[in-house]
């Protein structure tokens, strides 16, 4: 598994298609980091070959990024916590 900070992670993910779809796994029980994410209406349709990130293991801070024909897992505790927290806020009837 590769180590990566959040800035380099976003740079890699964004460079692949110019857009990153973030899909979070079930939420962490623990409190997450800063509450910076703002819910919005998507401005575009899902792009072709979307870059998808999901929390593989929130406790370990593992985030898996699927992009193109590849899949790689990174350790980024801050990002994993933010994704998990965003996911926990979305619970309920959709």
């Amino acid at each position, binding site marked *: 598994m590769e180590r990566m900070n959040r800035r380099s992670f976003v740079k890699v993910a964004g460079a692949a298609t110019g857009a990153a779809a973030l899909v979070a796994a079930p939420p962490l029980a623990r409190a997450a980091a800063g509450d910076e994410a703002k819910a919005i209406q998507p401005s575009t349709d899902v792009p072709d070959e979307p870059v998808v990130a999901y929390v593989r293991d929130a406790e370990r801070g593992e985030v898996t990024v699927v992009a193109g024909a*590849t*899949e790689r897992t990174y350790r980024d505790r801050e990002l994993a916590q933010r994704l998990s927290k965003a996911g926990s806020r979305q619970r309920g009837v959709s």
Partner: protein
Amino acid sequence: MSSHREAPGISTDPVADNTDTYAFVSPDDPSTVTIITNYVPLEGPPGGPNFFEFGDDVLYSIYIDNDGDAKPEIAYQFRFQTSVRNPNTFLYNTGPITALGDPNWNKRQHYTVQRVMGQESRVLGSKLACPPCNIGPRSTPNYNALADAAVHQLPSGETVFAGQRNDGFFVDLGAIFDLGDIRPIQHLHLIPTPDAPSVDPLKTLNVHTIALKVPISKLTKDGSVPTDPSALKAVLGIWGAASRRKVEIRDAGKNGYATKESGPWVQVSRLGNPLFNEVLIPLGEKDRWNSRNPFGDAAFLSHVKQPELAKLLPVLYPGAFPNLQALTADRADLVAILMTGLPSGIVPGFQNFTGKTPADMLRLNVAIPPAKSPNALGVIGGDLAGFPNGRRVFDDVVSIELKAVAGATYPLVDSSYTPDAAVGAVSSYLTPAADRYQSTFPYLGVPHDGFDTPSS
């Protein structure tokens, strides 16, 4: 069934469900091998208006191992693309389809074929047309011409076809899944009923076929055309598989509903020997088996050594299989037939041994020429060109494998064993109609049309 709906996961995904894989020396062109992989089980011919087709989001693969390591040295990959000529009608066709380019045909598929060897890949053909499904006398009045036009000779030497065909596999499905019943001998069953003729529900159903004819010299390790059946290089391991992308996102976006895929390919279906996953692998492991490659099949070896069906037969047919019931040793005969191939010295003039690595693959000895008078029972019927030497479209694999599991082949590894007399009565009891198959590529017969076969 051979591998129709054989595992919980893949049974919900018919376009990726590999139902049968065949591999044989082409009877009308013996310098070539024909490999067929079928998908979309149990197609009812009248299933419109969105008739059956391949999956645009599926990677279809044919794998060839030519050095006995149970890993593919060669892969042929197929990708499909559907196009709609007129989105403002509900109809598949707006008039008779008389040619592959006919403007009356509204929803059609094309495909790309790629050959992969190691890190090298080469596109052999693109924008290759599939035929339409066989609809009826008004829509597809000359279906044979459409199907013939969809046989493509590639500049690289291969011949390909992809489209609907008659399903050549035959079995009394309704009986066999009713607690292993065999209608013609069901008075012997644990829950007896009067004997009755076998029924073949697949005789009116279609399937989607990918057929590939390849010069033998393009498949063997050294580029030769082996003529000595005892040579190890004469044996090819062959299997088919289907894969999907890791991620699929369904989006009801601004431009309408769409799905988008991303990520590496994940295998969801595979098939070498008929009935392997279906009969030998337990329910809880079937989807895992589908996701694996033959090289790792040692993990499933115990299910071949001690097959569940061999224990069930003496229970389901009380008193009919006393010798099988007493047989507790590992089934080295089944391991050889299905997982390593038969070495020389077991069946005179025959071997299809690929080495000690246990792996589910069809094993085709290409040095054995096509039979002049084929026997659907293959090797156990004295016809060395048939299953388990590869598999021909008409081989009665249900009878062969039932007999083998029932003990018919155990004397190959233990001459002191006497098969039960009932082994002779274990059979599919089916003889497919002649039009189920054809003598030329793609060898499976013309698909049933929905007008004349409306109620399957």
